[in-house]
C-alpha cells in the first residue's frame, strides 16, 4: 500500500454559523497509527469527515502527500473509512458489500473475485461471504466494514470510533487485531474515539481534542504523564485537582498554598506556572497511604486525612480520603489476602512532587459549539 503523510493546517469548520473546529493543525507521519481522542461533541468525527471530504472546511488546508485535496471529491481521495455503526448495506451480502467499491474499477470478474476473497481471507471472514450483514455478529460486522474500507487499497484509513459497539473482551481482541493489521499493511490510519483506552493502547501518537480545538499532541505515555492543561488531565485518566495559589516561584522552587492542604514547597523544573491562582493535579496511583502515626518518607509531601469510602477494583483498591474539605482518590495496589483499610481510619496521604502537575487556574478556554 502507498504510505502517505497528512498535513492539516489551520483548519476551521462551522455548522449553522457556530464554530465546530477551530485552527486545527496536525502532521501525521506515513504509516502512523494516529488517534484523535475527545469527549462527545468535541468535533473529532467532524475532523474525520473533513479528511474524508464528506464536509468542506470553512478555512485551512488538508494535504495528503503534500497535495492539497481541498477540491477533490470524497470518491477520488482514495480514502477508506469505517463508520461508527459500520453502515453495512443490509440488502447486500458480505461479498457485495465489500465488492461495491471495486466494481467500478473495471477489474475482470476473476480479478475482482480474487481481490474480494483476498481481503475477506485477510480479515478471517471468508466463510461469511454470502451472508447478509444482519445475520453476523457485531465483531464480524466490524471486520466486514474494515474489509470494505480496505478493498480499494486506500492510501489513508479513517476509523470512526470503531470499537464503541463492542463488548469489552471483543474490544480488546479487535484492538489487537487492528494494530497487527495496520502494521502489516503499513497504511496511515487515523482513529477517532472517546475511549482513552482505545486511543492510548494502540496509537503511535494521540491528539486530544476538546471544544473544537486540539489541546495536546504526543505519545500516549507523554499525554498521560505530562498533560499540558486541566482539560487534558481531566479527560485522560483520573486525576485529583486541588485548587490553590502559587505563592512564589524562584530558584526552581515553588510554594503552593491551599486552604485544604496548607502550604507546600518543593523543587520544580522550568515549566512551573507563574505566581497566582493554580490547580495541583495528582493521579490517584501517584498517591500513597500510610498510617497516621507512620514514618513520613522524606521523598514525599504528606497530608493528613480520613478514609470515607473504599472500592475494591481487583488490581487496586480505590479509597476516597477527606483532606480538609477535599475528597481525594487514592489507588493502592491490592495483594492477595491484604485487607482493605476500613472507612473512618485516619491516614497520611503522601505524593512525590515530581509526579504532580501544576496548572494555572485561568487556563480555561472559550468552548466551541459541540458537534461530533
Amino acid at each position: 500500500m502507498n504510505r502517505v503523510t497528512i498535513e492539516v493546517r489551520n483548519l476551521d469548520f462551522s455548522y449553522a454559523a457556530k464554530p465546530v473546529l477551530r485552527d486545527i493543525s496536525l502532521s501525521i507521519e506515513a504509516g502512523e497509527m494516529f488517534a484523535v481522542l475527545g469527549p462527545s461533541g468535541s468535533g473529532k468525527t467532524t475532523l474525520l469527515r473533513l479528511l474524508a471530504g464528506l464536509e468542506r472546511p470553512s478555512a485551512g488546508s488538508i494535504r495528503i502527500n503534500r497535495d492539497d485535496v481541498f477540491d477533490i471529491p470524497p470518491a477520488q481521495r482514495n480514502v477508506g473509512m469505517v463508520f461508527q455503526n459500520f453502515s453495512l448495506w443490509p440488502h447486500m451480502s458480505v461479498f457485495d458489500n465489500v465488492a461495491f467499491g471495486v466494481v467500478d474499477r473495471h477489474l475482470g470478474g476473476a480479478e475482482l473475485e480474487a481481490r474480494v476473497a483476498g481481503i475477506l481471507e485477510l480479515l478471517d471472514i471468508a466463510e461469511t461471504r454470502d451472508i447478509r450483514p444482519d445475520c453476523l455478529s457485531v465483531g464480524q460486522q466490524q471486520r466486514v466494514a474494515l474489509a470494505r474500507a480496505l478493498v480499494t487499497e486506500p492510501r489513508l484509513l479513517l476509523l470512526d470510533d470503531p470499537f464503541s459497539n463492542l463488548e469489552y473482551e471483543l474490544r480488546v481482541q479487535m484492538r489487537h487485531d487492528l494494530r497487527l493489521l495496520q502494521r502489516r499493511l503499513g497504511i496511515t490510519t487515523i482513529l477517532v474515539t472517546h475511549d482513552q483506552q482505545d486511543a492510548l493502547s494502540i496509537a503511535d501518537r494521540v491528539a486530544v481534542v476538546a471544544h473544537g480545538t486540539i489541546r495536546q499532541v504526543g505519545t500516549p505515555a507523554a499525554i498521560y504523564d505530562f498533560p499540558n492543561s486541566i482539560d487534558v488531565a481531566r479527560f485522560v485518566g483520573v486525576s485529583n485537582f486541588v485548587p490553590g495559589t502559587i505563592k512564589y516561584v524562584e530558584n526552581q522552587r515553588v510554594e503552593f498554598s491551599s486552604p485544604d492542604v496548607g502550604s507546600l514547597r518543593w523543587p520544580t523544573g522550568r515549566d512551573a506556572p507563574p505566581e497566582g491562582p493554580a490547580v495541583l493535579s495528582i493521579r490517584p496511583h501517584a498517591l500513597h497511604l500510610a498510617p497516621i502515626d507512620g514514618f513520613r518518607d522524606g521523598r514525599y509531601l504528606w497530608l493528613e486525612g480520613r478514609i470515607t469510602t473504599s472500592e475494591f477494583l481487583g488490581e487496586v483498591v480505590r479509597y476516597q480520603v477527606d483532606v480538609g474539605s477535599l475528597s481525594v482518590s487514592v489507588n493502592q495496589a491490592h495483594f492477595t489476602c491484604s485487607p482493605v483499610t476500613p472507612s473512618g481510619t485516619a491516614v497520611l496521604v503522601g505524593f512525590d512532587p515530581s509526579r504532580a502537575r501544576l496548572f494555572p487556574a485561568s487556563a480555561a478556554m472559550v468552548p466551541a459549539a459541540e458537534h461530533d
Partner: protein
Amino acid sequence: MLFSVLALYLLAFLALPVGAMVLRGVTNTEGRFSTDHLTLLLANPVYLESLGNSLVVACGAALLAALAALPIAMLLWRHHVRPSIYIELCGFLPLFVPPFVLALSLQNLLGRGGALGWLLGGDLDPAILGLPSVMLVEALHYFPLVLMTLVMTTSASSQQACEAARLGSSWWRLMTRIFLPLGMPGLAFGMSITFLKAMDDLATPLSLGVTNLLAPQAFFRVSAYGSQDPLSSLIATLMVVISALAWLASIRLVRQHVSWRSGAFAAAAPSRRQTIVGLSCLGGIVMLYATLYAGVALTSIARIWSYTLLPESFTLSHYLTALGDERGSFINTLIYCGFAAVVDVLVGLLMAYAIDRAAPRWKTGLTWAAAGLLSVPGVALAIAYLQFFRVVELPFFNQTIDASWFMLPMAFSVRGLPFAIRACTIALQRLPKSYVDAASLSGGSRLRVATKIVLPMLAFGLFVAFLLCFGVAAVDLSSAMLLVPSETDAPVAYSIYLNMQSTTGRGAGSALAVLSIALVTLSLFVLLALLRPKSKAASSFRKFVFTAS
C-alpha cells in the same frame, strides 16, 4: 430544480386555490375587502344552524369515541393486555373505509323494513333520528382508531403499572398519574382525526338525510349556484379555519414524547385471568362491529330482504353486478388513486428530505406544518379547485381543467400528503447518511450509489407510502363528490354511494362496499406480513403517528 417543482406544486394545488377561495369569501365583486358575504351568512339561520350542528357533530363524535375508548383502554392497560399488531392495525381501518357505509348498514339493520327495525317499529331508524345518528355513526366509525391510538401510547407502561400495583400503589392513582398523561397523545390524535373527518364528511349526513351541516350546505351551494358562489367559499373557509384551530389545539398534546419500550421491571406474562378479560374485551368489540356491518354484508348477498330478521333468500348476483357494471369505477380508482399516490410519494419524499435537512429550530415546526395539511377539508379543497381551475385549460386536451378528471387525483394527492411525508420520513430514517457516505467513499459513481444503495434501501418505505396514500385517496368521498365530472368517471367510493341511492336496491352497492373493505383489510395485512423483522415492523408502525421528528 426539484425543490422548485415542489414549490410549484404546493403553490398551484394548495396555496393559490385555497388562498383565492378565502379571498373570494371576504371580498366583493370589485375585489375589495368586504364583510357583505359574512353578514349574509350570519343573517341566514340555516347557515348558523349548520355551523352549530357541524361543531356539535364533530365535537360530539370525538367525545363519544373517546368516552367509549377510555374505559376499554384502561381495562386492557390494567390487565396488561397488549393487542397484537394485526388488531392494532384494524384500529386504523376507519381511515380507509368511508363512514357512510356504516350509516347505510345501520339503516339496513334498524330502518323501518330492516332486520331489527320492523321489530322495533322503526323507532331507531338512523335516518329518522337525524343529527344524533350522524354523530353516533361518526363516533362508532372512528372509535377503533381512538381506542388503538390510546392503547398504543399506553401499553408500554402497563407492565410497570402491574408491578407497582403489586407493590402497593392504588389503581386509581396509577390511572390518573400514569395512564392518562401517557395516553394523552394517542387520545388527542384519535380525537382530532375524528373531529376533522366528521367535520369534512359529506356522504354520511347525505345518506342519513341530514343537510343542515356545513359540508352539505357548501355542496348544495355549489350545486345550486355554481362554483363561483362566494357563500360556498365562505362556508369552506369557515371549515378550514375550524379544522386548523382544532388541529392546532391538539398539537400540544399529540407531540408529547411517547415511549415504545416496555418497562425496566422483569417481564411478566399476563395471567390467565388477565388474558381472558383482555380477549373477551377485544372479542366483544369485534363482535359489535361484525354486527354493525352485518347490514351491508347481508344486503350484499340478499335476494329479498324486507321486514324479516334475515334475508329470505340469498344470491351472489350483486357481486357479479358489482364486478361487471362497476369495472369502470375500479379502473378509475386505480388511475386516480395510483396517480395521486405516485405524486404523493415524489412530493412527500422531497418534503421529508427538505425537513430532514432543515435547521434544527425549523424542523419540528415544519413537521407539524406538514401534518397540519390534515386540517384542509376535502369539501373546501374541492370548492377551491373548482373556482381556481375553472378558467385554466388542460394542455393538449382542449378543455378546461375543471371539466376533466385531472383535478380529482391532484386533490387526493394534497389530502394524502401528510401521510406521505410521515411515511417518507420513516423511509429516510432507514437510510442513515453514513450509508450513503460509505458508498461515496468507496468510489462508486453517483448513479451507482443511487441505484444500488439509495433506491433499494428506500424502496420498501416508498412502497408503504404509496399504499397508504392510495388507501387514503380511495375513500376520499368529500372531494370526489364535487370534482367527479360524470358518473362514468366515478371512483369506487363514489360508485358505492351512488349504488346505495339506486332505486333498484342497495345490493350492488353493498357488494361493492364489502369488496372494498375486504380488499383494504387484505392489503393492510399483506403489507404488515411483508414487514420483516416483525418487531421492527411493529415499532415502525407504532412510531408512524406519534414521533414528531
